[in-house]
């Protein structure tokens, strides 16, 4: 009985040691992975910063104005002026008035009683 107890205990300790060993290695692997990911994140952030800067540079008002001037034929854009504001009255709503339906209208399909 005592021997059995010792054997069980020893097996248990060996098992725990093995578990701790594998956990240690898993942790180290995870840390390495984190390191790689952090480097990647830093790189992506740098790329985002570059893209943002490029976007701002491409959208600078001077360039947009030059582009508008270059493409005046197609776009016909001019600077915003006070006369460009309008009233809702100036919006062209449909003017044709649809008469109310008085005549019988044939409807295709079966009708239900």
């Amino acid at each position, binding site marked *: 009985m005592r021997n059995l107890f010792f054997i069980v205990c020893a097996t248990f300790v060996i098992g725990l040691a093995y578990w701790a060993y594998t956990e240690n290695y898993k942790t180290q692997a995870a840390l390495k992975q984190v390191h790689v990911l952090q480097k990647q994140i830093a790189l992506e952030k740098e790329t985002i910063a570059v893209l943002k800067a490029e*976007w701002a540079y491409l959208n600078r008002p001077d360039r947009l104005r030059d582009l508008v001037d270059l493409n005046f034929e197609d776009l016909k854009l001019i600077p915003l*002026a006070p006369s460009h504001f309008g009233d809702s009255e100036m919006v062209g709503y449909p003017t044709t008035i649809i008469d109310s339906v008085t005549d019988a209208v044939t409807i295709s399909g079966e009708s239900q009683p």
Partner: protein
Amino acid sequence: MIRTPLRPLARVIEAREHGENPDHIEAMERSKRNQVAQHKLRKRAEARLTILGLAFFLGFAAIGGKMVVLALSEPKEPTLIASSSKIYSQRADIIDRNGAVLATNLITTALYAQPHKILNPVAAVEKLIKIFPDIDADKLLKNFTGKRKFIWVRKKISPEQQQLVHDIGEPGLLFGPREMRLYPNGTLAAHILGGTSFGKEDVRAAELIGVAGVEKFFDDRMRDPAQVDNPLQLSIDLTAQATMRRVVEGGMKIMNAKGAAAILMDVHTGEIISMVSLPDFDPNKRPRPLVKGNQSDSPLFNRAAQGVYELGSTFKLFTVAASLDEGLVTEDTMIDTRGPIKWGKFKIRDFHDYGKQLSVMDVIVKSSNIGTARIAQNMGADTQKKYLDALGLFTPTSVELAEAKHIKPLLPPNWSELSTMTVSYGHGIAVTPLHLASAYATLANGGYKVNPTLLKVDGKTAYGPRVLKDATSKTLMRMLRNVVTRGTASFGEVKGYSVGGKTGSADKPKPSGGYYDDKVIATFASVFPTDDPKYVLILTLDEPTIEAAGEVRRTAGWTAVPVVTELITRLAPVLNMRPEVAGSGKVHYTQVKN
């Protein structure tokens, strides 16, 4: 301790007498001794066991405690990338009021050389010259063959140039990462942003330090690692700024002016929506300050916030404002305008003769120097000073620009009665256009002090202390409106925006004393719309001249006013302001049913 013998004589004799074996007594005594010794050993062993047990208990308790702490604490990512360099290379972005980028960082490469590692200095220099034609070849060769162990060749190079240098294949030419400051909009807000330069340099990184403008004023905040991801939001509207710069640049050319400054300010919050000073520069390639000559001619000079000018008749409104607010006059009070006023050798004249008298309203509308001087004389120097001080015209402005912090207005050294009269129409006192803008904002917003700011104001407007009565502000706005409808700024009318303003044309002072006859500073200080003021727009032209209606004109009415008209026409729609067309107050909607 008394030692008991193994064979006590008395008991042995007694035992012998009884015929017993005395050896038994010895055995008994011996066993007694053994018992005592055993008891001692046992005690000691027990104590040792307790100590050992305690040690184990403490050990396990420590491990268990640590486990509990670990289980209760928040999981945290182990930070592996510890920055080894002590230089903070990061700098926060700057954005405009709508989030458009005004300044950001870009990673580039710096090229440096370690001459002791260079194999063939002559060939290396030859090849480098081909890539960078502006390098001084002799100096570089001298450096490459000299004793120095480290030389910066180029601070910023492009990826293409880096590849070309790489292709030289010289082991002594090395690259280091470098962060550079990029202002994507170029010259647009040059004077506001200022610029940066490299501070401490290292092979791995370099410090970016603000050298002027907002970049210098907020340098600590921009470099604070805790706030690097939090961009600095300015009150500037990029679209308005672009429009303003374009129009002012065009206007400056048409009016043959050598410089111009313009400020658009929110009258309620003091936010500077747009500020332009021409000529300007590209903050990406910040020019060096002038070595000789007048610094105010340098493109680096911010005419709007740094330049102090005598702004002339625009000051008349302050005189009238003070007088109205004190209850000394009303807009209909008649003022004697017979002139000229003689004061010793000094004479105060008007541009035209306005007859015997004018109402206070007409003194402003026709811009009479004599009338304003009389109003000021009547009011006295103390009242005048009190109001000008309350309007912030005696102290540097609160604007967040490094170079504007110490710009104090120039005041008369001793404030005589003559000073009171000349200051009343803007001579003998020099302030920046920004001072003028904030003072006009106070006149327009109902009389509250305005502190100009370049930072976006979030939430409700916090008004400063009251300087003028609300009724005074309303009267002043009516006067400004009249100046445009029937006065000196008749070119200032913009249909639908109810523009009001005051012109000012001041002769430029000669450096040697006295004034030029043919050089003026022409200013138009405008407010729109006058019935519910939202913005103040100041335009100052330096030495404008234009030939119009058969004469050479220099006055603001002919030069600054038409430019402001164009500015408001272009800016108001950009600022989402709808023109008030007559009759549009009653908009009736037609309901359409289908």
